[in-house]
């Protein structure tokens, strides 16, 4: 058995998601920016914190007209300890507690962090008070964390924001970012195919009882679900079944200079088409039925990039009848 191919993969939307927040969420986040925690009084008299846009039980719309200030002190309803904060995710770089905190005057609780050094300092029912950041932007992290509070002690001042032209404007949006990291396994069939590319070969697969050869197979003949357990060498020549000429620059990191041709190629000895770039001739010369051959990279690796592009062989074109079933 060959070693499996495994690769790192990161998922992150560049720059972060731009979230418009609407009036109710915007009002709450504006309050946080201004150093104020607000809740919304619901029809049954309960005060909802944080004020979601809709009553969690009745789904009635929550109105900014029903906002009331709560806290700033609050009570820990329940908590858990984070011994190893994750860089780039958690706002604190030291151990802390996640807690549900019910601000004074509220009937529900909000999830936030409590900044103490050890879990021994945490208890259900403990009193806490927000520690505000001085660079507040209108987001839940404007409260850096909550800290223990003794009733009767003075309420800490909210640090003033530095002057800015839009400091009175309401918050209308937030940006949320965060990368997720993965290790992806190629799987047996793809590994076989990619290791073939590393040797300058195209290895297809077919299932027992079928003549259809797939290059590259993802593990099965998709028409039956049967494993493509039989390896078949496929030629690195084939026919352009159809194509387009791309005139938009920068569609991917791998895109060449425009104009270029992206085509479906039916390999000799395979029964499915796959996408490839066509080069080695002017884009105007590319046509359906044109015979092409793989242009292999100088240094082959177990990667799709080992075939740089496809170029004309100069052979006569295939007859339409020969490839029309592959469109």
């Amino acid at each position, binding site marked *: 058995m060959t070693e499996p191919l495994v690769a790192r993969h990161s998922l992150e939307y560049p720059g972060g998601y731009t979230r418009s927040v609407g009036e109710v969420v915007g009002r709450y986040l504006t309050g946080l920016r201004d150093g104020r925690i607000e809740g919304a009084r619901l029809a049954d008299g309960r005060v909802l*914190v944080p004020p979601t846009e809709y009553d969690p039980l009745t789904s009635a719309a929550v109105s900014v007209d029903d906002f009331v200030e709560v806290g700033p002190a609050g009570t820990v309803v329940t908590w858990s300890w984070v011994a190893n904060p994750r860089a780039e995710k*958690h706002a604190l770089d030291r151990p802390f507690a996640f807690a549900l905190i019910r601000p004074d005057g509220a009937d529900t609780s909000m999830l936030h962090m409590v900044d103490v050094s050890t879990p021994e300092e945490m208890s259900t029912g403990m009193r806490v008070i927000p520690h505000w950041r001085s660079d507040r932007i209108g987001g*839940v992290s404007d409260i850096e964390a909550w800290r223990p509070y003794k009733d009767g002690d003075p309420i800490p001042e909210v640090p003033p924001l530095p002057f800015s032209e839009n400091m009175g404007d309401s918050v209308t949006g937030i940006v949320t970012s965060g990368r997720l990291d993965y290790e992806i396994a190629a*799987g047996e*069939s793809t590994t076989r195919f990619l290791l073939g590319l590393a040797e300058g070969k195209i290895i297809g697969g077919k299932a027992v009882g079928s003549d259809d050869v797939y290059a590259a197979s993802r593990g*099965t003949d*998709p028409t039956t679900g049967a*494993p493509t357990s039989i390896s078949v060498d496929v030629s690195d020549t084939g026919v352009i079944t159809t194509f387009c000429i791309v005139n938009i620059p920068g569609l991917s990191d791998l895109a060449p200079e425009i104009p270029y041709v992206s085509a479906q190629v039916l390999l000799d000895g395979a029964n499915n088409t796959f996408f490839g770039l066509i080069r080695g001739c002017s884009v105007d010369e590319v046509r359906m039925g044109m015979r092409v051959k793989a242009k292999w990279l100088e240094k082959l690796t177990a990667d799709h990039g080992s075939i740089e592009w496809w170029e004309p062989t100069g052979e006569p074109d295939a007859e339409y009848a020969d490839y029309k079933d592959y469109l």
Partner: protein
Amino acid sequence: MRDVAVVSFSYSTVAKEQMRNEVEMLAPVITEAIDASGIARSDIGFTCSGSFDYLQGGPFSFVMGLDAVGAWPPIRESHVEMDGAWALYEAWIALQTGEVDSALVYGFGKASQGNVHEIMSLQLDPYYVAPLWPSMVDLAALQARAYLDASGRSERDLAGVVAQAMRSARDTPQAIRSGEPSIEDLLASPYVASPLRDADIFPTTDGVAVIVLAAGDLARSVNKRPAWIRGLDHRIEPHSLGARDLTRSDSTALAAKHAGVASGPIDVAEVHAQFSHEVLILSEALGVDPSIVNPSGGPLAANGIMSAGLVRIGEVARRIMDGTANRGVAHATSGPALQQNLVCVLEGE
């Protein structure tokens, strides 16, 4: 309602599958389940799956999964971005319309490819909670403490749940974890997220599960003792943890009421408790004694994300089909801290 039964069930799990991709994991299990069902692949009336794009870190995981089915000629097919248990619900509905007599249901996911605890943070309120990145374990720990505080139970009770699950899992070939841990050893191990320790938390699992459903006479003709679905219901709660009573699972209790759990004796229960305290909360909500819960070891032994809920239905069905149980209840969950819950009552004839 129309009589619909589970007629076959297969599943596989592994802690970390590095050799095979999702299609290669699914294909043999689908084939095994179809072969065991006595229904030809080409005669299956409807196909429905559950999977989750964020587990593979890219869109359209179900598209690839379909390669394992053999969808040619074209098939009636659907997909939910939910655990396979909800795919079974959609299939059950299709059978209820009378338009088809059988269905293939599957759930799959490779949780080991990413950090599933962290991925689940993206389920949370995108404005108020997700930016703080509490993991699913952090949230479970908040619920665990709230439950312990309110119920008077202790971490020792949680260790007892774990010990029972590990002992039960010794007979489950798909268990990732099993054994005979002592309560003292469990309590001596460090917290992952206080009050939860490693053994209180499901093991990361790559898994696939497949169930074949059949209606009425077809079920009777292909299976000596089909596991009939006598009740199937699911309910959701408000999203915000702070707006819910975390010490109980009202949506499970409501689904159990609609599914008719209490209308007969329960021999076996399988619950989708990914954390030890959830076994206790869910047992209370279902009205069953924790001693009959999760004879397979449950998700504390193996928890294929997107398939473990379906596995609960399968584990109950298997015990009915082989005659070791007569009437049982299965449970599946979705969302942070048991936000959404499904209850299925199964019975032999």
